[in-house]
């Protein structure tokens, strides 16, 4: 199985503060990994390193076997087409229709004019595909609605749909359910993990809900103050370990 992401001793700092240090992580194709840890432990930073939004100032980051720092802009773009990102604030365009937001997932693959064409004159097959995707996520009837008329949870699904539509090799999701109530959050995580497993997409997610992480993800990575505290199968992670991870105070 190919290695999708390989961090080796990676570290990055912001304004004098070391956000991550000495992170060594392989992620294989098709894996489902969840990064957990207290606020400020570096979860977002870690995901940022993986698709090149942040540059490591120590160690190396390899995605799809290529060292990110060595890539040209064009190669980086190419590489990113295989990575979908779902940020915490979703990054949807509020005045576009749901259909159009989802279509943006293919922006990298089809180029500027291809995207314009798709948004302005959507073909029937494309619309059908999006509708099927939305149906699997439970909101098919919202296909043509303006995205900002949807509820928070529904918008979350649209963001997920966009990531899935991209047909990426890996999805990086940064706290995708942070502002959603627990019940809703659970069904969303279930949805995403199921879809990813079905399509064979590698899933790397950061979560705050520890229980959900344990329930749905086979592999958990715990971060504390920028370091990897543990990187184990979910069964191996005891409640004791979790308590320690989230304890404040002495380092």
């Amino acid at each position, binding site marked *: 199985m190919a290695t999708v992401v390989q961090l080796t001793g990676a570290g990055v700092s912001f304004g004098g503060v070391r956000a991550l240090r000495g992170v060594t992580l392989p992620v294989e194709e098709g894996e489902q990994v969840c990064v957990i840890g207290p606020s400020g432990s570096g979860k977002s930073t870690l995901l940022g390193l993986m*698709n090149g*939004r942040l*540059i490591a100032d120590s160690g190396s980051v390899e995605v799809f076997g290529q060292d990110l720092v060595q890539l040209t*802009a064009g190669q980086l*773009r*190419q*590489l*990113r*087409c*295989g*990575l*979908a*990102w*779902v*940020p915490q*604030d*979703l*990054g*949807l*365009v*509020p*005045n*576009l*229709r749901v259909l159009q937001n989802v279509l*943006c*997932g293919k*922006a*990298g*693959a089809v*180029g*500027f004019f291809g*995207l*314009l064409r798709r*948004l302005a004159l959507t073909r*029937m097959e494309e*619309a*059908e595909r999006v*509708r099927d995707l939305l149906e699997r996520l439970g909101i*098919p*009837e*919202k*296909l*043509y*609605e*303006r995205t900002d*008329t949807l509820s928070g949870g529904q918008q979350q699904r649209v963001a997920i749909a*966009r990531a899935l539509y*991209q047909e*990426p090799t890996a999805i990086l999701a940064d706290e995708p359910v942070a502002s959603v109530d627990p019940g809703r959050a659970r069904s969303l995580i279930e949805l995403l993990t199921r879809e990813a497993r079905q399509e064979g997409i590698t899933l790397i997610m950061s979560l705050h809900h520890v229980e959900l992480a344990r329930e749905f993800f086979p592999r958990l990575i715990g971060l504390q103050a920028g370091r990897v505290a543990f990187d184990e199968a979910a069964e191996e992670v005891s409640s004791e370990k979790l308590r320690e991870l989230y304890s404040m105070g002495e380092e």
Partner: protein
Amino acid sequence: MKKFYRSRHWLGSRRLTLLAAVLLFLVGLLVLGAKPEDLKPSEGGLRLAGKFLKAAVQPAFDYEAGDLPAAAPPFWEKVGHSLVLTLRYALVAMSMALFGGLVLGVLGSRSWWPVVNVSSPSGLVLLWILRSVRIVIRALATLARSVHELLWALLFITAVGTSPLAAVLAIALPYGGTLAKVFSELLDEQDAGAANVMRAGGAGSSAAFLIGVGVRAFPDLITYVLYRLECAVRSSAILGFMGIPTLGYHIATAYEDGHLREIWTYLYVLLIAVLVVDQWGALVRRRLSRPGPAREAGHVDDPVAELRRKRPRSLVLRASLVLAFGAVVVGWTTESRWQSELPAGQRQANLERFMREAIPHPVREADNDWGKLGPWLKERICPEGAVALHRTFHIGTIAILFAGCAALLAVPFAARSLATRNILEVPGGRERVRGLRAGIGCVLRAGALVMRSIPEYIIAFLLLQVLGPTIWPLVIALALHNGGILLRLGSEVIDNRSSRAAEVLVAQGATRSGIFTGSLLPESFNRFLLLLFYRWETCIREATVLGMLGVLSLGSLIDDANTRLFYDDMLLYVLLGALLVFAGDVVSDLLRLRLKGGLVRKGAVHLF
């Protein structure tokens, strides 16, 4: 014994601002030599005012003149033609400005910049180039806007000759500059989330920019363009004072002939035109920010075709687009002659001569010895130019302070959410006089609407005839017009605000003014200041041209130089005015940036 609580921060920024405002106000009055006695109109002035007000309720429906030349067209044809011309110039100018503004606005914003690798030297060079381009473009845009459209028109007409193209360019240049500036600000302020996601997914910069930022900014862009169109109609009307036959021209000639009722006809026509565009803009804005009326919702089982049929569509938006587009095309194609009738060779010669005369005459006469520039400049600027500059600044400043105070005092009575017996939608009791509150609010809002729809130039022109050539007509005209604008904007700020503190005060039984000063005002103070600063430098910009009506300030110096055909002097004073406005623009931007930093906003800042 009562002890007054001394706030430790008595020199806090808010009080400092107020103190500065009061000081500026008093200094301004002093510098301008504004005397309260001058406010009293002469006997002749009072009589004129009386006649004028009487004429307001009987606008002319036909020529007032007794004998007419044989070839005179029917009255309404004349009025209609003038209106069409006014609208046509406004539309065509806006289409040009929109194009220029979009291009320059994008170039002048940061949002289209590709991700630059700052650790590499080539990346740093690229960043430096991008930054310089941005600064240069924004400077150009601000410069274009710093010259008032009347002055652009004067320059074009003097240099080349009268023509519709001159009129259109005179509006398109400053408006293009403003649009460019506002567009780039809007684009920069947009939440880059969507663009970032697209870029992270491999999309190119242009796609990420256009869809992630551009589409997102679209509603605000369109809203602002429509607002500018309304302003363009006003600008087009006052170009009439430069001899171009739009509505302003007929108002001026009607006054000369003493046909006061005709003046009102033209004024009403202008008012209606401005109001129509204004309401249209408001309608489009509402539709863009909120989905339309309830319609059939899609069903879970519906196939794509069915869902597509049921999709939310806005008739208003589609119709508006077609209408706007059609109007612009009609405007462009129905002008019989864009350029003046002079042959191209003659136009070229005129332009060359103008450029030659623009060089200061001592320099010209000494065979382009630019060493002579210094003394010539000094002679012009000290003291005349500097005094005029100073006065222009104060005219604008005093006017906006007046307007701001008046608007602030009126907002509690005019804002929809306050001017009703159910304040902030909390049920109030029975009123002694039914509907009095709402009525007062209505009247105030209507007054503000009228004041903001009549161009300052026309108000000043009419007031000058009544009050005589003192500083007051200019100040009052600016104050009234801007007061109307500030009142409307201020009311919107209050209406759009959901203030928990205010509701608590209502529940506690506070009076209206108590609620206003106790909760709404402090919370919205920064927003009000923002509006004030925005209008402040617009006021100064208007003040530079109002002087052309005859009161000592930059405008009068420009007019004087024009009369003597001293184009070098004229250009110098125009430039001085532009520099003043440019400086005001920069200062206003800085102040607004500082204020905005402290504001928690939902979405982009509301534009005017």
